[in-house]
């Protein structure tokens, strides 16, 4: 990630240049959307979350310190916001007295009807969807966003060993999905 460009854009934004923020949005919108889509599943939720992330970033940028990487910061907002959405869903299920077991069962059955690709790809997709949250986040950042374990550790505020262990477990689970 060209952090130097980001620093310059942030400096311009902090001096009142709104177009600098637009450039930051254009630069990161796809990555943010992809992470959100992978973690939340639907386009609507991913769209809403992406916009929410940029709104938070907009309000937080005034006090943003340039020694911290912008992409680390905005990815962290994305991951935390996605976790919030998932957790609020879970909370709402409990609070509204829904049968959580039933909801999970219906959700896991739904993708089967939607995915039309060949069987192996379906299996991988489903396996990614079913990864535990932290493994899914680590896998998404490593595989989809091509971040290093060190960068992921910074984003998640975890040590690198934990990130590697999560990635390792994720790959072992995905490997089972393609087992011949």
């Amino acid at each position, binding site marked *: 990630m060209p952090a130097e460009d980001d620093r310059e854009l942030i400096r311009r934004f902090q001096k009142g240049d709104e177009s600098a923020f637009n450039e930051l949005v254009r630069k990161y*919108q796809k990555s943010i959307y992809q992470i959100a889509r992978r973690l939340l599943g639907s386009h609507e939720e991913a769209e809403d979350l992406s916009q929410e992330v940029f709104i938070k970033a907009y309000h937080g940028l005034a006090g943003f310190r340039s020694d911290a990487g912008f992409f680390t910061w905005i990815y962290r907002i994305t991951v935390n916001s996605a976790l919030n959405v998932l957790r609020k869903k879970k909370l709402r299920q409990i609070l509204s*007295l829904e049968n959580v077991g039933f909801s999970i069962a219906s959700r896991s059955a739904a993708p089967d009807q939607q995915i039309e690709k060949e069987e192996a790809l379906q299996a991988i997709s489903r396996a990614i969807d079913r990864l535990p949250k932290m493994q899914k986040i680590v896998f998404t950042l490593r595989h989809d966003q091509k971040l290093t374990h060190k960068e992921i550790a910074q984003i998640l505020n975890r040590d690198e060993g934990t990130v590697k262990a999560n990635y390792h477990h994720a790959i072992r689970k995905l490997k089972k999905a393609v087992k011949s």
Partner: protein
Amino acid sequence: MNENMNRRHVADELIVHFDEGSLQELPEELKAHIETCPNCRQALEDLIRLQNGLAQLTPAEPNPGYWNNFLPKLRQRFENESSRRRGRDLAWIPAMGIALILALVLLTSPTQIGPPIWYESQIWAEGSTVLWDDDLTSEEWDKLIQITGNEDIVSTIVDASELELIEQLSETYPYPSCDLIDQLGEMEEESFNAFLQKLMDYPIIQS
């Protein structure tokens, strides 16, 4: 050396190579082991299949015109948010007016005004507008859920009481964020599950 390589160790090694994209360039020692070990060969084949599968899985993309509209939509949300904020900034004016009128009524009324009485029938009649009363205690919410037994009303109530519940229950978790909702994202999985358990033990949920 082959004898020293247990299956688990090789599996771990292979995942490291998978991660580094070097499954096709394994060290000679590892290659030699794999040639003699059917299980490890299977593990390597599975990883290669996974690698090929992942390469074909393209990330979900919205329709092509979507990105052209993303920024204008975002700017529109900023606008809406600013308008709401401006509205909130001025919200003290009607509130002050109501307070003044109430003060006048209290001062001029010959009879003492008692605490508001919560009529179940009125709440029924109000339907979803019952949410105007954000000051209901948790016991009252509890009672309301028992009375209505209506999922729509209950879920509306849940929205309104959610923050309060989170506020009460998350106090024991010292997280840096001052935004209560953000705290949820910062919780460790274990703490979050403990938090959920606590929530499920809460009287409203038990009802």
